[in-house]
C-alpha cells in the first residue's frame, strides 16, 4: 500500500477563488492510501516545496499528489522536489485544478466538486505508480553519413569541424554526387565544380573524415547512440593507398568503348577509369564487367604501366564492421527514366535529352568540351525546345511519372535557357511550362532575367509530341494564351525529367527501420518542427532523400542535420524517457502486431526459452521493446490483443483507475 501525501495549492486566488481548497484537501484525506493532506498558498514556491519535503520525511510518504496548475507547467518542478525528498520523481502525479478547473468554472460548488474528483483520480493513479528510472545508454562518438553528394559532404564537414569522427559511405568510386555533374548553379551562375571541388578536397584532407568510396551499407543493427553497421567495400582491383591517381592506366587500357556513366553515356571511358579529373579519392577503379583481364585473364596492360604497382586483380570485396552513434542518410536523387514517355521520342532520337544530360553537354569537362553540339551530328543547334514537368505532377499514371512537383526544374531550365542565349544569341530558345514556380531568394528575378534580358520564349502550354523527321525534331505544342497549336522545327529538345529518390533508399530504410512515404522519400520526425530527423531516433536526413531540393536548401538541411548529430554526439550518455512500453513476456503472443504500429522501430522479436507451468521448456517468440528507442506513444498497447504490452507511467491499470475514480 502506498503512503500518499496530497498537497492542494491555492495559487493565490487563482485556484482558491473558485475552489474551496480546504474542502478539497479534507475530502482527499479520506481516499485510500492517503495519509497526509494539506493546502498552501503557493505550492511551487520554495516554502511550498519545503512543506512537501518535510511531509515526505515526517509521514514516510511513498507517493505525492499535487492539486495545482497544469502538469505541463510544474510537473518537472514537483518531480525535482520529490527527488530532493528522497522519493522517486515518478511517484508524483498532478491534478490539474487550475487550467482545467478553477479557470474554466465560475461556480464554487461545482468547481470544488470537480477538483475533488480530479484529485481522487490522481490519488487512484499514484496508488498504482511504480518508481521509474530512466535508462542510460552510452554514445559511440562517431557518425556515419550514407551518400557522398553535396548533402553528405556538407554534413560530414560540419560534424568533423565540431571534432567528431565521421565516415562517408559512397557507392560510386568518387564522392561529389549529382552536383559534380552540373555545369553552372542557379541563381548566381557560379560553376558547380569551382564551389564543390574545394569542399571535396576539404573532406579528403580532414583528419576526422574517412571516405569509404565504392562501398555500400550492407546491414544496420542497434539503435540511437549504438549502431552496428556492416559496410561492403567493393573490390576496385586497385590498391587505394598505393594508387597515385596519375591516370596512365586509364590512357593505356585497350578497352575503349565502355559507356561513361559520369557523362550519362554520351561518351566512352576505359575499363579502368577515374570518373573525372577532380575525383576524391583520386584512385582508379577497374570495371569488372568490362576488363579483359578479369573476364578472361588476357591483358594486364594496366598492371604493366602502373609504376606504383597498385593494380591487384585478385582483390576481394571487404566487409567492415563499424560502430556509430548517429547515422545521416544522404542518398540523394536521380532523374526518372524517360522510357515511358514515347510522345517525346527520347528513345528515338539522340537529340532529345534530359536536363542532366544537357548539363554534361554544356560542361567544359563534358563530352563536347562545353561546346553546345547536338549529340546526333555534333552540329550547333539553332532552335532548342525545353519541356517542363516531364513526369512531375503526373497524377494519372503512377508507373509513368510522379505526382509531386520536382521543385528544381523551373530554375535549372531558366538557367539553361539563359546560358544558351548568352553564349549563342542566334539560337531560338522555347520553354514550355505549366506553371513557373520560383520561390526562393533571387529566384524569380533570375527567371525574369531569362525572359526580359535574354529573350527566352516562355510559352504557357505543353508539348504534345515530338517527331524526328530528317535532321529536325517536329515539335507540336500548344500556346494556351494565344489559343494556338504551335509546330516548331527544333534541333534539340531538352526534357526536365522528374526526380526520384535513389533506388538504394528503400532497402536502406528497411535496415534503419526508418519510415518512408509512398514516393520513397524518407519521412521526417515532424514535418514542420523536426524536419531533419527521421522518426527513428539517431537517424537524420540530409538533402534530397527527404524530398526534392535545390543546392542551397540541401546545404542548409545538411548543416542542420549535422547540428542535430553534434547535439547527440556531445553527450556521453543518453538518458531515456522512462515512460516507455514494455511487454509482459509471459502473455506475449509474438504476433508482430505491435511492431507494425510502432513508428520508431523500437520493437523486435526474439525466440526465448521459457519454463512452463508444467515444467517443460518451451521456445516462444516474444516482443522486446528497446527503451532507448521507444518514445512512449502507446500505440502498441492498444494494438496488443493479449494486453501483454503496457506503457510505464500510463499503464492500463492506472488509466482505468482514473476512469473509475471519475465515474465513481
Amino acid at each position, binding site marked *: 500500500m502506498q503512503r500518499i501525501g496530497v498537497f492542494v495549492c491555492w495559487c493565490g486566488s487563482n485556484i482558491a477563488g473558485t475552489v474551496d481548497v480546504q474542502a478539497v484537501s479534507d475530502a482527499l484525506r479520506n481516499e485510500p492510501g492517503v495519509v497526509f493532506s494539506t493546502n498552501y498558498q503557493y505550492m511551487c514556491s520554495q516554502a511550498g516545496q519545503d512543506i512537501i519535503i518535510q511531509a515526505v520525511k515526517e509521514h514516510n510518504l511513498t507517493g505525492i499528489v499535487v492539486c495545482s496548475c497544469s502538469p505541463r507547467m510544474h510537473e518537472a518542478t514537483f518531480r525535482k522536489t520529490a527527488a530532493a525528498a528522497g522519493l522517486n520523481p515518478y511517484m508524483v502525479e498532478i491534478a490539474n485544478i487550475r487550467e482545467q478547473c478553477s479557470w474554466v468554472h465560475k461556480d464554487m460548488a461545482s468547481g470544488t466538486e470537480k477538483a475533488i474528483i480530479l484529485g481522487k483520480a490522481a490519488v487512484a493513479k499514484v496508488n498504482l505508480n511504480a518508481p521509474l528510472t530512466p535508462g542510460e545508454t552510452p554514445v559511440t562518438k562517431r557518425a556515419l553519413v550514407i551518400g557522398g553528394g553535396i548533402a553528405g559532404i556538407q554534413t560530414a564537414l560540419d560534424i568533423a569541424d565540431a571534432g567528431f569522427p565521421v565516415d562517408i559511405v559512397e557507392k560510386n568510386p568518387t564522392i561529389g554526387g549529382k552536383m559534380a555533374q552540373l555545369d553552372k548553379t542557379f541563381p548566381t551562375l557560379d560553376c558547380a565544380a569551382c564551389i564543390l571541388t574545394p569542399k571535396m578536397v576539404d573532406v579528403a584532407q580532414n583528419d576526422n573524415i574517412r571516405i569509404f568510396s565504392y562501398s555500400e551499407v550492407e546491414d544496420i543493427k542497434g539503435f540511437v547512440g549504438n549502431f552496428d553497421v556492416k559496410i561492403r567495400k567493393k573490390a576496385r582491383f586497385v590498391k587505394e593507398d598505393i594508387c597515385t591517381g596519375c591516370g596512365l592506366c586509364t590512357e593505356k587500357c585497350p578497352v575503349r568503348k565502355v559507356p561513361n556513366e559520369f557523362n550519362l553515356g554520351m561518351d566512352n571511358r576505359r575499363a579502368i577509369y577515374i570518373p573525372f579529373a577532380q575525383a576524391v579519392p583520386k584512385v582508379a577503379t577497374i570495371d569488372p564487367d568490362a576488363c579483359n583481364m578479369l573476364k578472361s585473364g588476357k591483358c594486364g596492360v594496366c598492371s604493366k604501366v602502373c609504376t606504383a604497382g597498385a593494380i591487384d586483380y585478385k582483390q576481394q570485396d571487404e566487409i567492415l564492421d563499424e560502430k556509430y552513434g548517429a547515422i545521416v542518410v544522404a542518398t540523394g536523387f536521380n532523374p526518372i527514366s524517360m522510357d515511358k514517355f514515347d510522345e517525346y521520342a527520347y528513345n528515338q532520337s539522340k537529340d532529345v535529352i534530359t536536363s542532366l544530360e544537357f548539363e554534361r553537354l554544356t560542361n567544359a569537362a563534358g563530352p563536347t568540351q562545353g561546346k553546345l553540339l547536338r549529340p546526333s551530328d555534333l552540329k550547333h543547334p539553332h532552335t532548342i525546345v525545353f519541356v517542363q514537368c516531364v513526369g512531375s505532377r503526373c497524377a494519372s499514371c503512377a508507373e509513368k511519372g510522379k505526382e509531386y512537383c520536382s521543385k528544381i526544374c523551373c530554375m535549372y531550365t531558366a538557367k539553361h535557357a539563359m546560358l544558351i542565349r548568352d553564349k549563342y544569341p542566334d539560337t531560338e530558345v522555347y520553354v514550355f511550362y505549366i506553371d513557373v514556380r520560383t520561390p526562393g531568394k533571387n529566384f524569380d528575378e533570375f527567371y525574369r532575367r531569362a525572359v526580359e534580358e535574354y529573350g527566352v520564349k516562355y510559352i504557357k502550354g505543353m508539348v504534345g509530341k515530338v517527331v524526328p523527321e530528317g535532321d529536325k525534331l517536329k515539335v507540336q505544342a500548344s500556346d494556351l494564351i494565344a489559343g494556338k497549336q504551335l509546330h516548331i522545327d527544333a534541333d534539340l529538345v531538352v526534357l526536365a525529367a522528374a526526380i526520384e529518390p535513389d533506388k538504394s533508399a528503400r532497402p536502406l530504410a528497411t535496415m534503419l527501420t526508418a519510415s518512408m512515404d509512398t514516393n520513397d522519400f524518407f519521412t521526417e520526425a515532424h514535418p514542420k518542427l523536426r524536419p531533419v530527423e527521421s522518426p527513428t531516433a539517431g537517424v537524420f536526413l540530409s538533402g534530397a532523400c527527404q524530398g526534392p531540393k535545390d543546392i542551397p536548401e540541401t546545404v542548409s538541411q545538411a548543416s542542420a542535420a549535422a547540428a542535430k548529430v553534434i547535439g547527440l554526439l556531445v553527450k556521453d550518455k543518453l538518458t531515456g524517457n522512462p515512460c516507455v512500453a514494455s511487454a509482459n513476456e509471459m*502473455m506475449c*503472443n509474438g*504476433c*508482430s502486431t505491435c511492431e507494425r504500429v510502432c513508428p520508431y522501430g523500437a520493437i523486435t522479436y526474439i525466440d526465448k526459452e521459457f519454463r512452463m507451468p508444467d515444467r517443460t521448456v518451451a521456445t516462444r517468440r516474444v516482443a522486446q521493446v528497446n527503451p532507448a528507442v521507444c518514445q512512449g506513444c502507446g500505440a502498441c498497447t492498444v494494438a496488443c*490483443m493479449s*494486453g*501483454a504490452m503496457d506503457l510505464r507511467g500510463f499503464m*492500463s491499470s492506472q488509466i482505468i483507475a482514473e476512469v473509475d475514480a471519475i465515474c465513481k
Partner: protein
Amino acid sequence: MQKINRDVLIDRAISLLNSGQVSSVLGWRQGEFFYDVTPAVFTDENDIRENFVWNDFCGANFSKYLVSKTKASDGKILVFLKPCDTYSFNQLLTEHRFDREKVYVIGIPCEGMVDTGKLKAQVGDGLVSAQSTEEGLLVTTLYSDEPVNVDIKSVLAERCINCKSKKHVAYDELLGDEGQIEDSDRFDEVARIEAMSPDERFAFWQGELSRCIRCNACRDVCPACTCEKCVFDNPVSGVENKAPVNSFEEKMFHIIRAFHVAGRCTDCGECSRVCPQNIPLHLLNRKFIKDINGFYGEYQAGECVGSRAPLVDYNLEDLEASDVFEGRDTQ
C-alpha cells in the same frame, strides 16, 4: 453431400503417416452423437481406418489447433483444411503463431456443412443417423419409423449458404477440385440490422446477447483468439469478468472480443457454430468486416500471409470518426 470421399482422405493420411512424412494427423472423430463430430489427433493407422470421420457434419476449423499441436509435436502434423479454414491458417501464420514447416496441409473441397439446429428443427429431436445421398440427407430419428429425406440446402449452416470462398489460399497438396472465391450475400443481415431504428437495434441485441452464459465457447473456438492469456482471464487488464452481472457486461465482452479480432477475423463462423445459446455472434464480426471494407477498402483477413491488417495501418485520407454515420439514418 461432400464431393470428396472419406476413403480418399484416409488413404492419403495413412500413406503420409506410414511413410514417416507426418507423425500425426489432425482430423475429425465422432463425439457422443453422430452429429457431434469433434477434432482429434490420430497417430495410428487402424484408428484412422475405424474412427476418422468425413461427412456433412465436419464443420470444425482445425487451424487454431496447430498453435498448440505444433509446439507439442516434434514431427510434422497433417491437417485437412476446407477452403474457409485456410484463411484462418494464413492469418495465424501472419501472426507467427506456429511454424509452417511443421505442418503438412491437404486442402479438401467442401460443399457446405449441416447446421444441426436447423436439422433438429425440421425433423425433431432424437437424431440417430444421417446418410448423405445424391437426393439429400436421409435422416432417422428415435421417434420416426421411416427415414426422412431432408433437402440438404435447407439445413446448411448460415456461413455455408453465404460461403465466401471455395478456393484454398494455402495448401501443400489439394485433393479434389479447386473452387473459386464466391460472391456471397454475407453482409445482407448486417445491413438489415443497420437499417433498423436504434431502439430496434438495441432490442435486437439485448435479446440476443442477454442469452449469453459466458461459457467462452466462442472465444475458445475462435482461430483469431489464440492469446497466451486472454484479457478476460487477466485480473490486471481491467476487463476481466468471469460471469455477467447485467446485460451490458455481455456486450462489453462481445464488443471487446469483436474488436480484438477486427481486421483479423476471417469470418469462418466458428463462433456462431459453437454458441450453445445460438447467438449470431458472426454478425458482430461481420459488422467490423463490412465497415472495414466500406471505410478503408476491401480486405480479407488471411487471404495472403503477411498482409497488413486494417487496424495496424492507416491512410492520410481515412474518413473521420464523425463521418462514420454519413448517409445513414439519423436518430
